[in-house]
């Protein structure tokens, strides 16, 4: 067992060795520019790119021509939201999204607000889910775009994408979904799910960093976007710039592996996640699941350990690499905006830890992590004035705290 055990798979994943192997020839041997039409170097590169496009399309149920290569989901989100808003501004200037989206969506939405668009930020329910009814109620005649994620990166909650997609198609509103956490983890089918635009990043599914795609629907409806990068008109004019062939090949391989191994991998990670959850909930009191027990990613577990602060908890099991929703792990001093949107109290938001189960996670590692985290929580509760109060029957929530920052 290699320490520290990596359990932060929602942040990033290691490149699968099979992906690296597939990429290697495209650095120094088949190094051509995929846009070079006059020689074998270019043709080889182009063929490799087209094969990758097919593999990526197959993972999400799209047509290869609907795949636009980008540097990753953040860029894809910028292109999708800004590109669609600018293209369809004549039709309307209203956009619907949600408070628990990734910052990449929220920041682009704020940018669009400054440019005169109106954005409705729906509040998810306490499990992090947005219902199709809530979306329907937010739609207006001038709504041009709905942007809601497939799976939440912090709590793993899945939105009812198909229902929202059907609603959007019925109302003639474009539907963008951030599939960064969903792709390769759960079945994703842009056709059956009525998705018009979707993004994913290579490094979240055992591919390389710095490569991703935007899926842009070609018909029913045909989605048009204003390019955000001007240049040689690559990628059907939507994203100029010489294609990053080795990374594209790697992303293609990663998507192929994800598609072939998904049924088995999803069941395996879910079983390990459930084991971790059972141990934590069986051996500790005052622990709370953040997210939706029914509609969630198979490989994600987000738990609040009441009366213990997240950063100190992570320090207490340094041999396990995880993330916390506590403010202390970031420079912002604000706890997770996702947990806040879900109306998880700020005290519990500060106490949250996200565990990720990945392709190489073993049961031995999960047991090691569980033992470590349980011991750390118990030790820190010995130090916690809030746990002492809780045991005395005083709910710290009822105390009038003199907050000073």
């Amino acid at each position: 067992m290699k320490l520290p055990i990596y359990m932060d798979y929602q942040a990033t994943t290691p490149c699968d060795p099979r992906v690296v192997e597939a990429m290697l020839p495209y650095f120094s041997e088949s190094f051509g520019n995929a846009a070079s039409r006059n020689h074998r170097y270019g043709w080889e590169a182009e063929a490799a790119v087209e094969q990758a496009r097919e593999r990526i399309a197959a993972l999400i149920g799209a047509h290869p021509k609907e795949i636009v290569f980008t540097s990753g989901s953040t860029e894809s989100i910028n292109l999708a939201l800004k590109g669609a808003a600018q293209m369809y501004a004549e039709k309307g200037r209203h956009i619907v999204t949600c408070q628990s989206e990734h910052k990449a969506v929220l920041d682009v939405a704020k940018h669009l607000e400054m440019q005169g668009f109106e954005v409705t930020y729906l509040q998810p329910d306490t499990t992090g889910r947005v219902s199709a009814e809530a979306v329907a109620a937010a739609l207006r005649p001038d709504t041009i775009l709905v942007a809601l994620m497939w799976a939440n990166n912090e709590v793993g909650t899945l939105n009812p994408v198909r229902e929202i997609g059907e609603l959007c198609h019925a109302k003639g509103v474009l539907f963008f979904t951030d599939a960064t956490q969903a792709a390769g983890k759960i079945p994703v089918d842009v056709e059956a799910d009525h998705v018009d635009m979707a993004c994913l990043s290579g490094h979240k599914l055992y591919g390389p960093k710095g490569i991703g795609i935007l899926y842009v629907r070609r018909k029913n409806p045909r989605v048009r976007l204003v390019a955000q990068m001007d240049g040689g008109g690559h990628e059907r004019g939507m994203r100029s710039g010489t294609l990053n062939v080795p990374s594209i090949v790697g992303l293609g391989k990663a998507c192929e592996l994800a598609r072939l191994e998904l049924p088995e991998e999803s069941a395996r990670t879910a079983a390990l996640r459930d084991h971790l959850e059972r141990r934590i909930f069986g051996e500790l009191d005052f622990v709370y699941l953040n997210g939706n027990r029914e509609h969630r990613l198979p490989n994600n577990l987000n738990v609040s350990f009441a009366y213990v602060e997240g950063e100190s908890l992570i320090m207490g099991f340094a041999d396990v690499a995880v993330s916390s929703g506590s403010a202390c792990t970031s420079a912002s001093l604000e706890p997770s905006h996702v947990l806040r949107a879900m109306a998880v109290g700020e005290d519990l938001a500060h106490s949250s830890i996200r565990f990720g189960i990945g392709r190489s996670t073993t049961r031995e590692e999960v047991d090691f992590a569980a033992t470590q985290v349980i011991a750390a929580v118990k030790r820190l509760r010995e130090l916690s004035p809030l746990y002492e109060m809780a045991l005395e029957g005083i709910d710290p929530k009822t105390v009038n705290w003199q907050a000073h920052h």
Partner: protein
Amino acid sequence: MAYSKKVIDHYQNPRNVGSLDKSAPTVGTGVVGAPECGDVMKLQIQVEGDRIVDAKFKTFGCGSAIASSSLATEWIKGKTLDEALAIQNTQIVEELSLPPVKIHCSVLAEDAIKAAVHDYKTKQALEAKS
């Protein structure tokens, strides 16, 4: 974030963890911070004459908050009340090499000392009256 050796030492081996009898007239209790801010410190002192003979703490907070309060109890033990009140958060920052984002932890520890002394003095004043 990388922690200084001293922060890690206090976190792993916190000094003076525990509670004193908060109803005792010779004990002063200071509780500062708030759960929604991610830090709560409880610092208690046992006083004889005007000297702190024992100190205990419990802290909910990050490693730096735990270290700041652990260090504070270490420093005030054996000091007079006035000497304890003279402890500045900047001394804690220096001793633990706290980065700027963690300075609030040292401020909280200074506040906890002051709150405990204040509580003790208030109790003594009430005792004197009755």
